[in-house]
């Protein structure tokens, strides 16, 4: 396809290969390390679930004991496989006994790693089978009842109460939404455990728990069958428990998961070593289960200037793409993020936004681009807000975005009310329908404002990527080049949960999920 923006494919190739080298050098670091959350994920996939008598999740009980005994570098799979050999119990029973103080799995006789791995393999295949069942169920829905047209209408629910969320989510689906994201309660990203069971209390959102996932999945399947459209469910595989939530999401058929180490580092002050290691396993799981990940580049534009920092978004998208390639994720599953966040007072701002949105589409032609609405310059003037969202919707249909996170006219006032969501879906549906083929009809003036803007942003992104390659990603983040936020390599939360693997370490899920790709 000819570039409407006259982008130089040589520059795109230069930026992409540079990002590939950056990701590969990070991967060397990632491959040498594991984390408490990565190991808890192994347990969750092996079926360990539930809490002890003080509400500590069993995966935490087990991993904390292993870590305290200095066994983390060997990995949970070895310890559980060995305990299965020595006790004849299932992983869940082993965890329960550990919680009751009846078993210390690091004090048992030690089988060889090979024996432990063989012992655990049936459990591993059972877990993969459960995930495959969910993937097949999604496929079946898509082949029978079908799905909405792209850009998918993506709305959030955030009541704090999962049962209230269900009411709002089903209403939104009936009004036309294609994707429902359940916003998490504020600060869950910093919890080093995943809460358990159904929850009805939260601030600005609802706890991500496996039971809450199950409740919402069932509700969306019901309403999907009713409206004749598969309704996708989104939650957050991010924060301190990134891969655990990916595993829960794979088991409960989440379709979209927000997943971006850079976001956690910059905006939640999570330690960069911890979350980059966690991100790898979570992306392997996401790739395997056929859901989509969403990266959080849009957030750079809320802390940095959306016009000045546009190239940081593109550079980060390139890096996120390459991290995803290393986790064997298909392009269609890459929900790379960007946003419509320029100051509405900028002359020709609409042209720049349009240029950048088309640029993202041309550079990542198959990706499921996630386009985020204006938030920073939403003022409480709901009437103007509705127009800002209309311009955003027009850019989206024009540039062929995949996931349209709908703007709310009441952004900056409160989490959406039922009719806010309706007005927003109506706005997007009207514009998408009314301007459906504008993208294939309109071409741009050679050397005009729109072409030059995209060429400039691409060139700047390429330059930034080469600087990052020179200095390494870690030190780039330390210098505050993304989002204008500086984070030290050893700072932030969660570094104590990272360790170097020993020579006998194994995680049986990674090679199987990657299908021999690694």
């Amino acid at each position, binding site marked *: 396809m000819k570039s409407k923006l006259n982008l130089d494919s040589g520059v795109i190739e230069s930026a992409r290969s540079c990002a590939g080298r950056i990701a590969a050098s990070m991967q060397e670091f990632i491959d040498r390390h594991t984390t408490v959350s990565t190991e808890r994920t192994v347990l969750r996939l092996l079926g360990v679930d539930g809490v002890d008598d003080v509400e500590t999740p069993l995966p935490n009980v087990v991993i904390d004991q292993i870590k305290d005994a200095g066994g983390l570098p060997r990995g949970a799979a070895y310890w559980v496989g060995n305990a299965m050999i020595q006790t004849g119990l299932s992983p869940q029973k082993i965890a329960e006994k550990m919680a009751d103080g009846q078993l210390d799995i690091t004090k048992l006789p030690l089988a060889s790693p090979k024996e432990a791995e063989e012992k655990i393999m049936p459990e591993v295949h059972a877990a993969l089978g459960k995930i495959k069942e969910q993937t097949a169920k999604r496929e079946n829905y898509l082949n029978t009842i079908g799905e909405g047209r792209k850009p998918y209408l993506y709305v959030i629910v955030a009541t*704090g109460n999962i049962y209230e969320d269900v009411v709002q989510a*089903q*209403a939104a689906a*009936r*009004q036309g939404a294609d994707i429902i994201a359940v916003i998490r309660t*504020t*600060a869950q*990203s*910093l919890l080093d455990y995943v809460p358990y069971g159904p929850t009805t209390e939260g*601030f*600005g959102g609802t706890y991500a728990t496996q039971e809450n996932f199950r409740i919402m999945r069932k509700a969306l399947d019901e309403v999907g069958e009713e409206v004749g459209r598969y309704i996708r469910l989104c939650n957050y595989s991010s924060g301190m428990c990134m891969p655990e939530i990916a595993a829960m999401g794979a088991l409960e058929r989440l379709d979209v998961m927000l997943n971006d180490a850079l976001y956690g580092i910059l*905006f*939640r*002050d999570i330690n960069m070593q911890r979350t980059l290691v966690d991100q790898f396993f979570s992306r392997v799981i996401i790739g395997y289960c056929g859901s989509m990940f969403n990266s959080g580049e849009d957030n750079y534009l*809320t*802390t*940095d*200037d959306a016009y000045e920092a546009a190239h940081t978004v593109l550079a980060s998208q390139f890096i996120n793409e390459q991290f995803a390639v290393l986790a064997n994720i298909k392009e269609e599953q890459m929900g790379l993020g960007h946003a419509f966040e320029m*100051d509405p007072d900028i002359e020709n701002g609409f042209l720049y936004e349009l240029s950048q949105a088309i640029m993202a589409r041309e550079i990542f032609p198959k990706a499921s681009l996630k386009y985020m609405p204006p938030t*920073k*310059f939403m*003022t*409480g003037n709901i009437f103007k807000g509705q127009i800002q969202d209309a311009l955003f919707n027009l850019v989206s249909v024009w540039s062929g975005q995949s996931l349209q996170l709908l703007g709310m006219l009441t952004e*900056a*006032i*409160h*989490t959406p*009310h*039922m*009719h806010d969501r*309706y007005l927003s879906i109506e706005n997007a549906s009207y514009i998408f329908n009314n301007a459906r083929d504008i993208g294939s009809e309109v071409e741009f003036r050679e050397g005009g404002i729109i072409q030059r803007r995209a060429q400039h942003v691409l060139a700047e992104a390429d330059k930034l990527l080469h600087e990052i390659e020179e200095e390494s990603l870690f030190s780039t983040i330390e210098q505050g080049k993304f989002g*204008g*936020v500086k984070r030290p390599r050893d700072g932030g939360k969660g570094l104590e949960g990272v360790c170097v693997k020993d020579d006998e370490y194994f995680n049986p899920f990674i090679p199987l999920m990657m299908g021999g790709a690694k």
Partner: protein
Amino acid sequence: MTQTAVAKVDLTNVKPYGDTMNDGMMELAFTLPVPHGEEASEAAKILARKMGLDEPNVVYSKDMDSGFTFFVVYGKCQHTVDYTTIKVTKVEVDVMDRLECGQYIKDNIKRDVVIVGASTGTDAHTVGIDAIMNMKGFHGHFGLERYEGIEAINMGSQVPNEVLIEKAKAVGADAILVSQTVTQKDVHIQNLTNMVELLEAEGMRDKVILVCGGPRISHELAQELGYDAGFGSHTYAEHVASFVLTEIVNRGMI
């Protein structure tokens, strides 16, 4: 005396204005948890009348979902307000711009002023504190980091009150800025109150200028909670800086 073409406003009896003085015109938008239909529209009208709107007119209604209906309603407000007796608690300070603030420090304080800020508690939003403190500021209003004579330390989001106080102690802060964006279930009130209690327990409350800000914060609320000032929407770094610097001089914290 010639008659004026338009009625003049009576400030002791103010009513909403649509296109004619005292027409009382207001528009409302809301959802009722009842199924769409004539009964639903009647319910919306009855509600509007109870709210003091004469001649309520349901100009639009829409089925939201089984059991919910959205309305746009117009009506003429019966109530009036005596504007002449209104008193609002406001931050009373002459606002200086960034350069004037720098000069004010040179002339009156003669040392660097230290300001520590954070979005505290569980609040993950940095947009407010960044707008006030970061170099770039917001919408053309540079943040405190760019002010000459001010050392601005932005600790970011989700900072426990205790940590913010520790930092303030360590750097000898003149002022502490607390940002609160999430206000669901009044979590900001609990958090702001807790901050004041901790400072009092530490014996620090009188030694610092304590300021809070956020889209739902008013000066009146701030004072009720024990803060020296509160800054809501449409206030920028210069407002906060002018207040803090003037307070430093007024309190003799030089």
